[in-house]
């Protein structure tokens, strides 16, 4: 009798489970069948009526039925959940080609992006970044840099004067002088910053532009060290394939002086419009610090020597980003600035 009941429950329940399509009725069924007051439990309560021989057999059967029902219910539950998830995901599908919701971030100015690169390279080589005033005394910009009274660079056509003895610095070398006066060697600094010259604004000129000058003063510093340092710098900035050419030049504050050309990074030196078919691009000025400059700063040229160099940031930035008009750098048009 019990055996039949058990069989029946199993069959009926299996049939009900098979057609169920929601979790709620499935849970009700679980309680109805397997709960403390459930049908299966009720049947099991009749076990006492059975003989000692039958009891274990029916007991075993009842456990089988329970396990079978639990498995059926669990399987069904899993299937229903999977179907529901599937349905939800389907409903939530989006058009992935629609635009994202951007929280706009800003941009750096191209000149500062370049400057950051330079700072990182030179800091990596042991240099300290120093700053100094833009309104300067003539002595720091000219006199102590061996640029005597009467030198063309001092003419009012080449320099913005404030008074006879104060001016807007025409180069950041003044910071080097201030550093040498303040600190004892060894010195390894770069001095990036704004410089001023009375050039009217056009595609390639601006009365304000930016330089990054460098200075090293230490024992036994040679011209070869200058070459090696600038080669290192250029390779860090432009990659290992770049070649440097040191061309004799003249600056009042260095001796020997050199202009440095880089093999054209666009054509690799074969010749193209960027390098005007010369294969080389003039990149920076440099030289071994003139002993008189050291003496002016209270440094003994017999004990110490050094080198200096100057790099124009505009030039690097303009070439890196294909900027063909310098005015763009100072017009601050959002459509330009947001490109970097």
């Amino acid at each position: 009798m019990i055996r039949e009941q058990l069989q029946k429950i199993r069959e009926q329940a299996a049939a009900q489970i098979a057609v169920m399509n929601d979790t709620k009725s499935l849970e009700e069924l679980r309680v109805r069948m397997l709960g403390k007051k459930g049908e299966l439990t009720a049947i099991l309560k009749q076990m006492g009526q059975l003989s000692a021989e039958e009891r274990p057999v029916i007991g075993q059967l009842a456990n089988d039925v329970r396990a079978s029902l639990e498995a059926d219910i669990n399987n069904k539950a899993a299937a229903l959940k999977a179907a529901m998830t599937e349905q939800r995901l389907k409903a939530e599908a989006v058009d992935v080609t629609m635009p994202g919701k951007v929280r706009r971030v800003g941009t750096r100015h191209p000149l500062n992006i370049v400057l950051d690169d330079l700072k990182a390279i030179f800091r990596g080589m042991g240099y300290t970044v120093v700053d100094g005033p833009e309104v300067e005394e003539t002595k720091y910009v000219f006199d102590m840099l061996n640029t005597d009274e009467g030198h063309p660079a001092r003419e009012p056509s080449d320099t913005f004067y404030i008074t006879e003895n104060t001016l807007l610095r025409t180069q950041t070398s003044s910071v080097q002088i201030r550093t040498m006066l303040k600190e004892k060697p060894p010195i390894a600094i770069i001095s990036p910053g704004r410089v001023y010259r009375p050039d009217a604004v056009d595609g390639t000129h601006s009365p304000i532009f930016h330089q990054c000058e460098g200075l090293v003063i230490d024992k036994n510093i040679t011209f070869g060290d200058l070459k090696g340092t600038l080669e290192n710098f250029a390779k860090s900035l432009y990659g290992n394939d770049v070649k440097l050419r040191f061309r004799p030049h003249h600056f009042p504050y260095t001796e020997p002086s050199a202009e440095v050309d880089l093999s054209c990074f666009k054509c690799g030196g074969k010749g193209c419009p960027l390098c005007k078919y010369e294969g080389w691009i003039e990149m920076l000025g440099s030289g071994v610090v003139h002993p008189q400059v050291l003496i002016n700063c209270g440094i003994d040229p017999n004990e110490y020597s050094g080198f200096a160099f100057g790099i124009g940031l505009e030039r690097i930035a303009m070439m890196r980003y294909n900027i063909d008009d310098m005015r763009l750098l100072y017009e601050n048009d959002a459509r330009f600035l947001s490109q970097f």
Partner: protein
Amino acid sequence: MNLSMKWLNDYVKADMPIKDFVAGITMSGSKVETYHEMRGEVDKVVIGKVLDIKKHEDSDKLWICQVDIGQDAPIQIVTAATNVVKDACVPVVLDGGTVIDKEHNTTVKIKKGKLRGAESCGMFCSFNELGMDNSDFPYSSPDGVLILNDDPDFDKMKPGDDVLKAVGLDDISVEFEITNNRPDCLSVLGLAREASATFDLPYNVTEPTFTGIDCDINSELSVTVENTKLCSRYMAAKVKNVKIGPSPRWMVERLRASGVRAINNLVDITNFVMLEYGHPMHAFDARYVAGNKIIVRNAKEGEVLKLLDEAKEPVKLSPEMLVIADAEKPMAVAGVMGGEYSGIWDDTTEVIFESACFDGVSVRRTARKVGERTEASSRFEKGLDPINAKNALYRALQLVEMLGCGEVVKTVIDEDHSNKTPHKLVHDYKWVNSFLGAEIPEEEQITILEKLGFVYDRATHEITVPSVRIDMNLPCDIGEEIARIYGYNKIESTIPKLSSRSRVTKEQKFTDKLTDIMVSQGCLETMTFSFISPKSYEKIRLPEIRRKSVTLLRPLGEDTSVMRTTMTPSMTELIVRNINNRTPEGRFFEIGRVYLPKGSAEELPEERDILCIGAYGPDEDFFTFKGIAEAIFEVTGINAKFEKTVNDTFHTGRCAKITVGGRYIGVLGELHPTVSENYGVKERIYIAEFDIASMCELADSDVKYKQLPKFPAITRDLSLVCDDSITSGEIIETIIASGKHLEQVSLFDMYKGAGVPEGKKSLSYSIIMRRSDKTMENEEADKYVEKILKALAEKNITLR
């Protein structure tokens, strides 16, 4: 400096391909800007001799010529020219050749063809078509074909020769950029010396000499130098029986390749010598030297002089200028330009040559003042060698005799106050090597110096510097000479072992952090000029006291004439420009400088780095903009306080000053509508300026990790009602002052209107409390809130 390669080759046989010459000389320190062949685009034009000429059968205007062009058989050319005769030698453009069309400023390619049935294998051409003019061929008529039979070099010409070569136009002109320290290279001889050293070629220059006629210049002329400081040497020579005429072709062509037009033999000689020796000369017509006296003196107030510069007004002279005067009047501005009156004329018969040394700075200042920066002044201004002054004069006299254009008086006047002690330096090859970081053998170093014209004493290692080399003073100068001729690029590159360490200052780190925050807040970094128009101060309604600025003596224009004391005008201008460009919105920032003048103009101003932020657009309001500032303070740990302030630049109700512990660090707000109007826009513009050094000082740079909370927090929301005049800042301060275990107090709602009495507002705050030692119980929290409400009630702030 434009150099004629032919001229150079007179002294150094630098006959390598021009590309190699240019590359080599550039790399030894004389930078070549560019070079060009004097022939220009003229190509395939040879000398032809007309063997036979007869009329074209089908034309009255055409002639058929058989022309010998130096080949086995003559070629046939059909011409319309009327001046061609049998045996005439003419320039013939061959098939495929190119000539100049001066009228249309272009070139013409000639092709073989048929003219009325007769084959023509080329074209005869005029001097115009060769790119030359009448002064090159004075014997030729300007119309018709150039007939070379009367040419002075005719006997050297033969059919088939390149015609431009035959008339000297086969030169190459090389343009050099000569550095300031090498005025000696503004000359053919200077560059010849460089070429000789660079390419290891002999330097064939001899000291110039002349014969002269027996006669003493002192009986005909006197020279007085009144200012020997500005004129260290003045030499004068006289040429009699002058025959003014054209210069020979070799001279004309060398001048042409140097960019100088030939005028007449006497004038050409002065120019030729200036280019060859680098020493400017001057020639006076002796007739106009009043009293036969030359006086080198300062100009007198009120003196004027009409210069040799065509059509310009006479220049006013002033007492700091040096002039060459005669007994009565100034004749020339020393070292700059001669007067028109005493210059060389076609009927000049006696000439006085001047070769002198004037003070460089004085010449440059004078040249600028009279507005004539000439070839002469640009050489003088660098300082010239007194010994070269004599060589130049002698060379001029030598040329006069060579050209047969006058008789040179045997004696010359020499007022010499110059120092001609030879300059000596000691060469130490080991020092040079250690200085350069090179290993150049002693002998090689000595050879380099000798090739450059230094006289080397092997016993003492003393070198005597050539007198034209004003740039040689120190051992490092010797080092440079050796390095550049040896080759900069042959010196091994080394990496110095620096004993210094890289340091980064607190302010540098702080500035980098600010930049990162600004970028994260969507701001575009800008770069504005640090000089502005003084009118900007008016536009932003800046108080008078803040308008005092560092002012440029000679600005490019009013717009860029004062150093800004505030960045607001720069930021406003760029925002307005973007508005005008129809960019709908924007956030910007710049870390820039302001320049605050001190007491006297001689004192350097205080330069302060400022963070300036600007924004505009439909989604921007006071609070979105303030959010940018709050992001800064949160990230940098600055405990900033915003207070309402009145500032004429800003909206009276939307401007806050920011302080930390009572110290001012910046201002933030919406621009006053009048200010926007002054810039021609209606849009709301938000601007903030912060002083970076102050912020950096107040920032919490010493961040330490705080333990994460172990116990739960209790949150209470308080909806309060208060008078409109009470600020949220005051309420928060009261809550903080009266509360306990507060973790956060934040405003989440502001309401005015129905349910809230007129003149009052409702503000809702969320208060988070948490104990660090145990879980806070509700009762405890109630107690704290009670205290807060009591404190608020004292200020008439009540629960809603």
